[in-house]
């Protein structure tokens, strides 16, 4: 490119300055959350807040883990998110396989079209009928209610993500397997799934994070405190009159840990999957 060294340096400086500014903007609320969680109450309630901690403490974490229902909420979220991920994955593998291999069948086109449309319907508009439906089925405040809802809202996206991975596997493999007498199930289990394993793992993480982070349905469909999930549950730390910010931030840090680990581990896959699956220009 025709650029003088001076403009090139200027451009590099501007670029890095912008990126550092963006990074600070993105990370400081998160850093402040961790910082507050490690402070004793006296330092949290300071009129002159700083990032410096004079006497760091784990007391907030201990209080959250021992004296609050945090662990109950945490395990509820773990159960619901894991179960929805597994069910979503099983249902979507079969649907994605049909859409990928036999996409021309009228039935496949109808279900595929229904999935596209259902992806555009926001959950909040269905909140009331879903609540009354769960009430009628006697499923309010049960894991099944949330698992069913999360699966339904994730299946379309996950199906299309999986279809994308399946499309990348040569069709000749399926023909060869069929000639060798391999059943459809055998082909999916022995060839399709192992070959698309990295993509499927990334899709799993995506579905898990989506279920783990969901707030509204957990808030509305789960009224029993022993069944409450983490995102609505954490709101109890924000008391009606006074909030113990140390406890709230400690609980936040603990709630974010699983998501953060999953994310760091699979960042590259997620970025690619999201750009391919979610926004097709």
């Amino acid at each position, binding site marked *: 490119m025709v650029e003088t060294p001076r403009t090139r340096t200027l451009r*590099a400086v501007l670029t890095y300055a912008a990126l550092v500014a963006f990074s600070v903007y993105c990370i400081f609320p998160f850093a402040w959350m961790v910082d507050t969680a490690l402070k004793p109450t006296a330092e949290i309630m300071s009129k002159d807040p700083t990032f410096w901690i004079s006497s760091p403490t784990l007391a907030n974490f201990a209080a959250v883990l021992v004296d609050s229902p945090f662990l109950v909420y945490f395990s509820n979220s773990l159960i619901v998110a894991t179960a929805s991920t597994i069910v979503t994955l099983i249902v979507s593998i079969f649907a994605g396989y049909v859409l990928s291999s036999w996409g021309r069948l009228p039935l496949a086109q109808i279900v595929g079209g229904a999935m596209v449309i259902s992806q555009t319907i*926001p959950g909040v508009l269905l909140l009331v009928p879903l609540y009354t439906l769960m009430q009628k089925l006697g499923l309010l405040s049960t894991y099944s209610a949330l698992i069913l809802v999360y699966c339904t809202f994730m299946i379309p996206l996950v199906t299309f993500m999986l279809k994308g991975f399946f499309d990348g596997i040569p069709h000749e493999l399926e023909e060869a397997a069929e000639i060798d007498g391999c059943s459809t199930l055998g082909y999916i289990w022995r060839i399709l799934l192992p070959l698309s394993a990295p993509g499927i793992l990334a899709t799993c993480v995506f579905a898990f994070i989506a279920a783990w982070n969901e707030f509204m349905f957990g808030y509305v469909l789960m009224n029993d405190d022993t069944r409450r999930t983490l995102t609505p549950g954490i709101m109890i730390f924000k008391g009606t009159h006074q909030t113990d910010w140390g406890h709230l931030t400690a609980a936040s840090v603990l709630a974010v840990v699983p998501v953060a680990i999953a994310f760091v581990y699979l960042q590259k896959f997620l970025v690619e999957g999201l750009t391919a699956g979610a926004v097709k220009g």
Partner: protein
Amino acid sequence: MAAIDTVSAPDRMTEKRFAARRTARIRRTAALFLLPAALLLALLVAYPLANVIYKSFNAASLVDPTRVGFIGLDNYRTILEDENFLPTLWNTFVWTALSVAGEYALGLASAVALAQPIKGRAFFRGVILIPWIIPIAIAGLNWIWLLNPDYGLINSWLVKSGLMQQPHDWLGAINTALLSVTFVNIWRSFPFYTISLLAALQAVPADLHEAAALDGAGPIRRFWVITLPHLKAVSLTLIFIHIVWTAINFDFIWVMTAGGPLNASETVPVMIYKYAMQDYDVGAASALAAMATGFVATVFFVHRYALARRKDS
């Protein structure tokens, strides 16, 4: 080839029958494989959607089972005569327009910076994605803490830097509550734009830039005539999706202000929730949800139309 020519007529018949049987088997398997997904969509999307429209013309209550029956447009009248309805619509508009505009501006700026030949792109991209992976409920609660008027970091910074005389209760004041939540929503949502726009930017052929540079086009001119046109399709989709996602977002506003103070930050989803879960008026909530569904359908229709027109031209 010769082998096929010598196949006798009966053999060809069995071959045809075999092919037909294979097609029938594929159809059955396909139907079986699609059944679970189709059942879930029918039970938890199609049925509730039909139910919203049906209930919007009927009396229905969460607590009073005797309140039933067709009442025509009464539910719609309840909504339209609610003195909060127009302010809520206006809030939803402000919240959506400012959010999407802010998110797009930050997303484009960060994507352009990330697309430069830099070291540590993966690192910066990872850091910029952080707000997007933190659950909204947790992000919202921690921003309440940052914006706290007594001990909050933001107020302390603003006062110390001399930008403000004294701390301000950002979420508790009528004139700043909605704008503050909008600011937080932009913080949380812009990384999605960054990732999508970055992917589109990296797909712009480098030789286009080189050719234009050789012809004497400066970086700013190249951005306008080469980069932006390449981003049009992605931008269109991003903006339309986010208009819908933002307009119907319940979490942020509910967690941070619950629509308050005095409904100053109430948007349509919060109003639906309050009608249903606080007034137990399922009919009115359904009427409002039905109107919102009409809005969503319109946005998607316009989006498809815009995309189709782009393809034609």
